[in-house]
C-alpha cells in the first residue's frame, strides 16, 4: 500500500471525487494558483481548471455563502478555510444556512457541502490562530463534524464527506499534514459516524481524535512499558458520535480517559463523558477523566503553549488515577 502524507491523502480524496462527479468543486483562499496555503490542493487547479478550483477574496462569510447557495442548486462544494480560526467569520452562513436550510425548507433543499481546513494549535501562532473549535460545530444540529487522525482516515472520510448530502465540517490539523501513513489506492471510503480502535487494550480506554490520537498512542506506549494495556479509541466522526464503540470498550476496561485539544468547559470530551456515564455507568470503576488544553487563550510563547496543550505525561497521570495506582 502506498505511503502518503496526510496532505497527499486529502488531495487524493478531492481529486478522485472531482474526477468522479463534475458537480464537486473546491473554493477558498489561495487554493488555486498558490496550490493551497498548506499545499493540500496541490495541482488541482492545473488538473481541473479555474472553474472548479476557485480562488476567493479574503471574505470567509462571502464565499461560505456562495458555497451554500451553490449547494442549494445542486453543486457539491468543498470550501477550504485556510484555518478554522477564520471560519468564525463564516459562522452565520454555516450555522444559520448550511445547517438549517434542509430542516427549514421541509427537505426541499439539501446542502451537500464540506467545510474543510486545519483546526487547533500549530506552533507559536498565538491566541487567535491556535483554537480548537470542535465543540462549536458539534453543538449545532444539522452539521456533521469529522476529525481524522491518520492519512488513510483522512482520505476515506473526506470522500464520504463529499458524498454526504448534509453539511460536513471536516477539521484537519496543520501539524499533521506532514504525517505519513499507508493509504489505500482508489475507491476507499470510511463511513461517517463509525469509530475505530487504534490500539487494543484491556486496562483503560483512552478516547482521542485528530492529532490527539498521537498523544494518546504515545501515552499508551509509555503505559505498556509499565504493563498497562490501554485501548485507544478514535471516534473519527465527532457528530454523529459512534457511541457503541466507546461503550463496548468501557465495558471491557471499566475506566476511561478522554484526550481533547479543545478547552475544558463544554468540550466534546464532556459530551463523550456524559454518554459513557449514561450508557456504561454500571461498568465504571472510576470517574471518567478528561485531559484538555488549559482554560486560557493560547499563549504565544512556545514553552507556555506546550504547557497548555495535552501531552502524553498528562494522559499517563490521568490513566494512573483512574486505575487507582
Amino acid at each position: 500500500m502506498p505511503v502518503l502524507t496526510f496532505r497527499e491523502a486529502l488531495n487524493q480524496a478531492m481529486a478522485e471525487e472531482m474526477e468522479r462527479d463534475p458537480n464537486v468543486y473546491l473554493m477558498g483562499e489561495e487554493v488555486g494558483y498558490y496550490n493551497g496555503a498548506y499545499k493540500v490542493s496541490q495541482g488541482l487547479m492545473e488538473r481541473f481548471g479555474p472553474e472548479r478550483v476557485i480562488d476567493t477574496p479574503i471574505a470567509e462569510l462571502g464565499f461560505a455563502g456562495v458555497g451554500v447557495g451553490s449547494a442549494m442548486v445542486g453543486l457539491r462544494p468543498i470550501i477550504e478555510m485556510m484555518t478554522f480560526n477564520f471560519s468564525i467569520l463564516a459562522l452565520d452562513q454555516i450555522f444559520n444556512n448550511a445547517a438549517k436550510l434542509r430542516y427549514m425548507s421541509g427537505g426541499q433543499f439539501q446542502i451537500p457541502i464540506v467545510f474543510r481546513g486545519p483546526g487547533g494549535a500549530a506552533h507559536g501562532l498565538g491566541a487567535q490562530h491556535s483554537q480548537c473549535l470542535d465543540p462549536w460545530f458539534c453543538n449545532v444540529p444539522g452539521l456533521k463534524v469529522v476529525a481524522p487522525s491518520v492519512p488513510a482516515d483522512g482520505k476515506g472520510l473526506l470522500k464520504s464527506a463529499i458524498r454526504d448530502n448534509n453539511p460536513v465540517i471536516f477539521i484537519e490539523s496543520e501539524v499533521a499534514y506532514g504525517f505519513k501513513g499507508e493509504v489505500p489506492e482508489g475507491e476507499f471510503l470510511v463511513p461517517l459516524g463509525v469509530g475505530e480502535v487504534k490500539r487494543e487494550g484491556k486496562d483503560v480506554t483512552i478516547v482521542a481524535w485528530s492529532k490527539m490520537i498521537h498523544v494518546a498512542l504515545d501515552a499508551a506506549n509509555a503505559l505498556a512499558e509499565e504493563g498497562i494495556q490501554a485501548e485507544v479509541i478514535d471516534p473519527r466522526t465527532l457528530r454523529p458520535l459512534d457511541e457503541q464503540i466507546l461503550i463496548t470498550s468501557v465495558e471491557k476496561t471499566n475506566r476511561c480517559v478522554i484526550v481533547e485539544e479543545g478547552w475544558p468547559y463544554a468540550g466534546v470530551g464532556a459530551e463523550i463523558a456524559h454518554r459513557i456515564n449514561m450508557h456504561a455507568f454500571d461498568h465504571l470503576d472510576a470517574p471518567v477523566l478528561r485531559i484538555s488544553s488549559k482554560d486560557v487563550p493560547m499563549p504565544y510563547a512556545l514553552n507556555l503553549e506546550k504547557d497548555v496543550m495535552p501531552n502524553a505525561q498528562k494522559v499517563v497521570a490521568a490513566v494512573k488515577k483512574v486505575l487507582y495506582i
Partner: protein
Amino acid sequence: MAVKVTMPKLSDTMTEGVIVKWIKKEGDNIEAGDVIAEAESDKATMELEAFDAGILKKIIVKEGGKVPVNGTIAVIAESDEDISGLLKELKSAPQKPHVEEVSTKEVESTTIASAPVVDNTPQDEILTRDSIRIKASPLARKMAAEKNLDMRKISGSGPGGRIIKRDVETVLAESGVKPSLKPSGPAVIPAGGEDVPLSTMRESIAKTMVLSKQTTPHFYLTTEIDMDKVVETRLAINAIQSGIKISYNDIIVKAVAVTLKKHPRVNGSFAGDKLVLHGRVDIGIAVALDDGLITPVIRNCETKSLGQIAIEIRESAKKAKDRKLKPDEYTNATFNISNLGMYDIDQFTAIITPPQAAVLAVGVVQKKPVVKDDEIVIGHRVRVTLSCDHRIVDGATGALFLKDLKKLLENPLGLML
C-alpha cells in the same frame, strides 16, 4: 457539661477506627490531655487523648468495637450530671461519619438494597456502621450486588475509602468466588445448535478425567466437620490486620497438608508394581476458568505458615485467571483440593487426577442447627468428601485421614504446632 468523645481521624485515609483498649474505665476522673484509650486506624495504633476534663461517664464503643471517624466513643461529664438524655439521643441517631448529610433511609435505598445482609451483625456494630455512606464505584456496587456481598463489609482502597473493583475482587478471591462480569443471562446459541471446537484445556480435561475414571477404582468417604472454631479463628486472625486475609479454604489447605504428612498413602501414588510415597506435600487447588479449570500447586504446604499459604493461593489463583501459570506451577501435585463452597454446594465427589491417590471435595461452610450438649444450637458445618484410589488407599486409610483432618479443623490451634 457532658461532651461526646469522638474517634479522631488519625490518618489521611482513615474512615473508621477500632478501639483497641480502654486505658480509663467508666467512673474514672479525666484531665484534659489524659490518654483514655488506644485506637487503631488503617495504619497504626495510637493513643487517644481527652480534650475535656470530667468523669468518664459512659463508654459507648467497647474494646474491639469499630466506629466511623467522628463517631462517639464515650461521654465525659460532671460527676453528678445526668447523661441519660444524651445517651438516648446517641442510640436513636446512629453515628454519622464526617459531615455528609445522608439519612439512614437514603443509605439503605441507595447502597444496600440489592445486597442483603447475610449474617447477623451484633447490635452494637449496626449502631456504628449502618449509617455510613458507602462510597463505591458503580462497577463495584454492581459486582457486589451480583454476588450478594454486603458492601458494608468491604473496605475501600480508592480515594476517600471508595470501594472499587479490586476491593470486591479481593473479597471474592478470599471467599473463592470467581468474579464474572459476563451477563448472567442465557448464552445465545442458534436454534439449530452449534459445534464448539475443543480448547486445548478442554481436551486435556476430557482425556485426564476419562483416564482416571476408567483406570482408577474410586470410592468416596464423606464427613461433616464442625467449623465453629475455624470461623472464630479466622475472624481473630483477620482482625490482626496483618495485611493478609485468611479464607476458610486457606485453613482447610493448611489442615489437609498437616494431616497428609501423617497419612503418606493418601499423599502417595499407585505406580503399577509399587506404591510411591512422597516426601513432600504439594497441594493443587482447583481454580475455575471461563472454559475449564486449572490446579495451581502450592509446594511443600506442610512446611508453610497459614499466611504464606494464603498469599501463595491468592497469587497463583490470579495467575491462573490471567492464564499466566507456567507448567511447573500447575503440575506434579501430590494431592488436590476442589472447593465449590462459593457456589453453595453442600457436598460433591471429585475425580482423582492421576497419579494422585485422592482428592478432597469441599462444600460450603454453612450455619445449621446442630446438637451440642443435648441442645439444639446454631453451628457452622462443612461437608468434605474424599475420593480415594482403592489401589493404594483402603476404606480405613481414608477414614483415618478424614478423622485426623476433622480433629484438626475442630481444634485449629493444632495448626500452630
